[in-house]
C-alpha cells in the first residue's frame, strides 16, 4: 500500500494541518496572557478581545479592502479592552478575575452589537503562503498552506521569551509579577507596568481574533470563537507561563482538534463525541501527568491572585 493512501498518513497530515490552521488564535491569546500574567495580573476577559478583534478586523477589511489593516485594527481594539481592564484593576480592592469576566461579557457584547451588519457581506481575506509545493502530495500541500500570522505568532513567542530572559524591561515585568514590594523598592511603577502588560496582551489577543475572521474559518459570526479565548487562557497555566511552551501547547491543541473530523473522514466513525473532545481530554491528561506541584508553583508568578 502506498504511503500517501494509508489511513494513518491521512490522519497525521490532518493533524499537522490542524495544528497549523487552528493553533494561531490560541497562540496569540496564550502569549498575550502570558505577558499579562507575568506582570502579576490575570485577564480572563481575553475571549472578549478575541471576539471583538475578529469583528473589528472583518469590518475594517470590509470597509477598506485591506485585510492587514483589519489585523492592526483588531490589535487596537484589544489595546482598548486591555487598557480598561488594566486601569480598573489598578483601583484599590478591585479583583482582576471579576473584572476579567465582566470584560469578557463587555467585549463579546460590543462585538455582537456592532458586528450585526457584517455577518453577511464578504470581506477580503488574508492570503496564505503555499509552502508545500515541493512535496508533490496534494494533502500535504494543502496542510502547508500557511498564513503569515502563524509565523508572526511564533516570532512573537520567541521574542517574548528572550524579552523575559535577557532584557531589563523583561526583568521589570517579572519582578512586578513575582513581588510587587520588591518592584516598588526598585522604583518601578507597578500599576503602570501592569497596565502596559495588560494592554499589550490585549493587543495580541485582538490580533488572534483577526485570524479567525480573516483567514480560518474566514467569516464573522457570533458563534465564531466558541470559547477559544477562554481555553487559551487555560493553556497559559498548562504552559507554565513560558512563551515557548505556549507554542507547543497551541500546536498540541490544534492538532488534537483535527482528530475528530479526520477519524470520521477515514471511516472510523464510532465514538465521534469522544474524538471531538480529544483536545480537552489530552490537555487534562498532560496537565495531570506533568504537574509537579512544587516546581509548577515555583514557575507561577507570585503576585497572581490564583496563586496567593
Amino acid at each position: 500500500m502506498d504511503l500517501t493512501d494509508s489511513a494513518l498518513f491521512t490522519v497525521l497530515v490532518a493533524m499537522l494541518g490542524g495544528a497549523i490552521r487552528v493553533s494561531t488564535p490560541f497562540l496569540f491569546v496564550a502569549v498575550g496572557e502570558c505577558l499579562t500574567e507575568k506582570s502579576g495580573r490575570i485577564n480572563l476577559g481575553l475571549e472578549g478581545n478575541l471576539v471583538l478583534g475578529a469583528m473589528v478586523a472583518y469590518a475594517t477589511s470590509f470597509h477598506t479592502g485591506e485585510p492587514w489593516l483589519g489585523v492592526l485594527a483588531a490589535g487596537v481594539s484589544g489595546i482598548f479592552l486591555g487598557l480598561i481592564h488594566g486601569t480598573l484593576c489598578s483601583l484599590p480592592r478591585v479583583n482582576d478575575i471579576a473584572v476579567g469576566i465582566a470584560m469578557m461579557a463587555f467585549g463579546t457584547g460590543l462585538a455582537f452589537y456592532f458586528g450585526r451588519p457584517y455577518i453577511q457581506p464578504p470581506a477580503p481575506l488574508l492570503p496564505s503562503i503555499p509552502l508545500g509545493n515541493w512535496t508533490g502530495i496534494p494533502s500535504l500541500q494543502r496542510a502547508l498552506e500557511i498564513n503569515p500570522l502563524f509565523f508572526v505568532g511564533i516570532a512573537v513567542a520567541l521574542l517574548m521569551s528572550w524579552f523575559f530572559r535577557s532584557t531589563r524591561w523583561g526583568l521589570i515585568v517579572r519582578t512586578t509579577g513575582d513581588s510587587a514590594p520588591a518592584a516598588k523598592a526598585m522604583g518601578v511603577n507597578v500599576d503602570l507596568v501592569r497596565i502596559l502588560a495588560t494592554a499589550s496582551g490585549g493587543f495580541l489577543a485582538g490580533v488572534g481574533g483577526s485570524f479567525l475572521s480573516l483567514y480560518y474559518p474566514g467569516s464573522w459570526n457570533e458563534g465564531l470563537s466558541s470559547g477559544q479565548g477562554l481555553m487559551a487562557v487555560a493553556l497559559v497555566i498548562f504552559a507554565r507561563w513560558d512563551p515557548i511552551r505556549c507554542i507547543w501547547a497551541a500546536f498540541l491543541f490544534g492538532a488534537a482538534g483535527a482528530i475528530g473530523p479526520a477519524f470520521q473522514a477515514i471511516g472510523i466513525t464510532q465514538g465521534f463525541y469522544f474524538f471531538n473532545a480529544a483536545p480537552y481530554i489530552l490537555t487534562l491528561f498532560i496537565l495531570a501527568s506533568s504537574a509537579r506541584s512544587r516546581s509548577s508553583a515555583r514557575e507561577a508568578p507570585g503576585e497572581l491572585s490564583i496563586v496567593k
Partner: protein
Amino acid sequence: MVRTRFSRRSLLQTSAAGVAAAALPFGRARAQADLVIGAVYVGSKVDFGWNQAHAVAMDVIRNVPGVTVLEEENVPETDAVAQSMESMIQLDGANVILGTSFGYFDPFMIDLANRFPDVQFRHAAPLWDAARHPANLGSYFCYLNQAHYVNGVAAGLSSPTGRIGFVAAKPIPTVLSNINSVLLGARSVNPEATVQLIFTGDWSLPVREAEAANALVDAGCDVLTCHVDGPRVVIETAERRGVRSCGHNASQYELAPNGFITGAEYKWETIYRLYADAFAAGEALPNVVVGGYHNDMVQNTPYGAGATEAARQAADEAIAALRNNEPIYVGPLYDNRGNLVIDRPMDNLDPELDGMNFLLDGVIGSIT
C-alpha cells in the same frame, strides 16, 4: 444606609408599577383587534441559516395589514426565553408567540402556555402532543428532507465521483432524515453514490465545521452539504477548495458563485400566513401544521453554476414528483449495519419517520 436602600427599592416598585399600568391596558386593547405576533430566535436573524429562514418569513407577514411583528434574536434555550416571551405578552400585547428553537418547548413554552391561556403559542418542531400539552400550544414543521432529497438528485448528477460529503451537527432524527434523503436522492440517479458523514457535535462550531469540510474534501468528496445552524463556513470552504456544494436552511447561492448546485430551504411564510389569515377570520389557529413540497412549505434554492444541465432536469422532475406526494422512503431499505429498517413505501409525512435513528446503507458514518 437604610434610607438609601429604602428609596432605591421604592423607586423600583413605583417605576415597575408605572410600566405595568401603562403597558397592560394598551396591550389588551390592541389584542382584541389586531394580530401581534412575537417570534423568538436562538441566533442572529442574518445567519444564512435557520434563524434567517424564519426572519425572512416574518418580514413577509409584517406587510399584512393589521399585523404587528415583534422579534428578539440571540435568546438562549434557558429561562431567558421565558422572560423574553413574557415581556412580549405583558409589555407589547402579543397574542401569538412563535418559539423557533428546539429547546424552547420543554419546559419554557409549556409553562407559559399554562400561565397565559389567552395567548397562542406555536413551536417549530413536531413536539406537541394533544394528550400531554396545553390546548393553546402547538407545533409547526416543514419536512426539509424533501428539499434535501432534491439536493441529492442534483448532487448525484453534478458530482463526477458520486461521493458527497455531509457535515452534520448532532445525530437527531431530523438531521438523520436529511442525510438519508440526500443519499436516496443521489442513488435515484447514481446507484453507486455515497454520502460521507462528519458530526461536529454542536449546532454552531465554525472552526470545527471548517476542519470537517476540509477533511471531507481531502477524503475525496467533490460535493459538500451540511446540516448546521449557519452553513456559511461549509459552503465557503467548499468553494475555496474548488468543489461543489448544496445549501441548507436559507439561500447560500451568493456564497459560492462557481460551485453552488442548489439548496434546501424552508418556506415558513406559508405557515405564518396561514396563522395570520386564521386570526383575521376569527378562527382558531390549528394546533399542528406540517408539510413539505405538496403544500408549499419547502423549496429549493435556484440552481447555481455547479449544477449540470442533467442535474437541473432531474431535480425539477423530483420536485414535481414530491408535489404529487410520491414517497422518498420506499422499502425494502437497509441501514449501514445491514438491518432491514424500512420494509414498505412510507408516506413522506409518516409519523414513524419522525423517530428516525438509523443511517441508510451508502452513508459512511455512525450515530454513536
